[in-house]
């Protein structure tokens, strides 16, 4: 269309301009979308990261200077950071493992035909629909021996000497938010894995049964390979989300007692909104971003090698 006109065009002075316009054309079409993405995602990210290199304390009007890598040096020397990092690892691994294990079990159970399955499937989804703030409060109350039943249950099971609040024990407080998080996150795994289970054709199981596979062997050689892609992507997503999620910890323990439940995300929250040190919080956030990126890339690399082997 235009190219035809152009080649036939006899006006040499405009030829260069036309060529430039023509080259720019596809970029002009892309520009609105690219502009929006940059404005909404990239600019805030860059501005946020830039805080990490500045001394930015909200209550100190003299602050705001560029201070280079000073914050990162402080982080390296900050025992609270290392403690939070360790807690983040425990928190994330235990939460993902329990959510995944229980979610898969629930999905396998819900995949069996039984009466009232539709209703149960809908009910299982409920915890996911509860705002995490609310579920944090609920669980905090349930762990409270004054109004909640759980300490007495733990005592009766022999897990506790006296019905104490687990959230006030420096050694075990982290299990409070973990239990709440596991309860809250199981539906995610159950629902996504159930959807994947239901997409497995029934006759493949029948063919395997006729080929001589028992229930365990059918699970190993059919269910697992079919679920593997869903498992990989849900574990990746949940790991990032859980590592990032501070709300249950902030609501239930505020990172305490004595920072024993402080994870990186809640530590950042504390630095930014309680000490109002946005510079240091941004530097912590940058470290966390790098760690999560490294994790995601490692997982992708593992996936690639696994795929290449097949």
């Amino acid at each position, binding site marked *: 269309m235009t190219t035809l006109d152009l080649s036939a065009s006899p006006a040499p002075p405009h030829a260069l301009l036309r060529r430039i316009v023509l080259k720019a054309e596809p970029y002009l079409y892309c520009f609105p979308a690219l502009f929006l993405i940059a404005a909404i995602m990239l600019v805030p990210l860059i501005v946020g990261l830039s805080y990490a290199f500045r001394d930015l304390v909200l209550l100190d009007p003299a602050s705001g200077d560029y201070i280079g890598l000073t914050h990162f040096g402080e982080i390296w020397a900050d025992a609270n950071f290392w403690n939070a990092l360790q807690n983040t690892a425990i928190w994330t691994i235990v939460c993902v493992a329990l959510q995944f294990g229980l979610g898969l079990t629930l999905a396998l159970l819900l995949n069996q035909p039984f009466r009232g399955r539709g209703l149960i499937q809908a009910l299982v989804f409920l915890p996911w629909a509860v705002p995490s703030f609310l579920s944090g409060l609920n669980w905090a109350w349930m762990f409270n021996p004054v109004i909640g039943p759980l300490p007495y249950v733990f005592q009766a099971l022999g897990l506790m000497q006296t019905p104490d609040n687990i959230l006030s024990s420096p050694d075990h407080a982290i299990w409070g938010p973990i239990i709440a998080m596991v309860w809250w996150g199981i539906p995610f795994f159950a629902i996504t894995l159930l959807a994947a289970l239901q997409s497995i054709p029934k006759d493949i199981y029948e063919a395997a049964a006729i080929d001589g596979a*028992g229930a365990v062997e059918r699970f190993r050689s059919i269910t697992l390979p079919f679920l593997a892609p869903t498992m990989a992507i849900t574990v990746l997503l949940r790991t990032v989300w859980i590592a990032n999620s501070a709300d249950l910890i902030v609501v239930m323990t505020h990172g305490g007692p004595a920072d024993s439940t402080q994870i990186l995300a809640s530590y950042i929250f504390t630095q930014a909104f309680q000490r109002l040190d946005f510079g240091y919080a941004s530097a912590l956030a940058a470290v966390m971003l790098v760690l999560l990126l490294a994790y995601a890339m490692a997982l992708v690399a593992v996936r690639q090698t696994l795929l290449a082997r097949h």
Partner: protein
Amino acid sequence: MASIDIAAVRKSYGATPVLRGIDLTIANGEFVVLVGPSGCGKSTLLRLIAGLELIDKGEIRIGGRRVNDLPPKDRDLAMVFQSYALYPHMSVRDNMSYALRLRKTPKEKIAAALKGASAKLGLDALIERKPRALSGGQRQRVAMGRAIVRDPQAFLFDEPLSNLDARLREQMRFEIKKLHRDLGATSVYVTHDQIEAMTMADRIVAMNEGVIQQVGSPSDLYDNPANLFVAGFIGSPAMNFLQARTVAGPGGMSVTVGQAEIAKVPPATPTGPVVLGLRPERITLTAPGQGAQAAVDLVEPTGLGMIVHLDLDGQQLKTFTTERLPLKAGERVGLMVPPGSFCLFAPGTGERLAG
């Protein structure tokens, strides 16, 4: 290889009976085709033999061993599914060797079995591929290969050719039959396609509404259908059914449609209304004035011959002839039915009448 004995087998889903008492003996090495319209219970019967579902009443024996309560894996049968049901994450080799590996067969034996089967089915070049990289016909072959490497007691086929196009279906029909000739394995084959049943079966089991209607060789069912259902189901173009009467005349008993006498019947035949079944290709068309008089309604050329639709005293019927007759719609013709090439059925029950 083994025989399969099915005795008084019943099966219901909830309150809906699907099989209402099936008795059938399949001899060692026999190729039996279960045929019938959808919902007749043929697939259910196959799944009961395979053990994918449990029977409510009755007994199934494979090679003399009662298998009622055995799970599928202990029945030593191989099954080819309509969807092929190949394991998508396994190569052709792994698909075919899966059952052998589960049975802890020695590696050399597996390799030999794979080699034999893949050569027989022409799968040598595809052995490392995944099912998604195969065409429909190739997948079908892999499904067959998965069955034959096992050397099972019997093969079960559940409409294995329905997902193929017409030409491939014809070719696979031929190949399955040849495989059966080479292996001599007991085979139970389910289809709704009467042509598959006619071309492949040693014996056909025609089923309808959970009941076996007739068991016999293809020619038995074609020439001597036991009832209206079998007569109408087997054969294409289908048998004509005409409202007729048997009457006693001066020349003996005969069967008439309207005023026209169609054929003589044995003197013992009772008089009264009957359904007259006529195979389209057994009707001879003659010049007007000879035989029963009919009008040409429509002519359908098929290449092989032509199907002529006729109007006989207000009733529609089809004839098939390989002659190329210059017939036009509205033209009058005569038709004759040679003795012994028609069937009479009782109008109420649809059962075959002698004669």
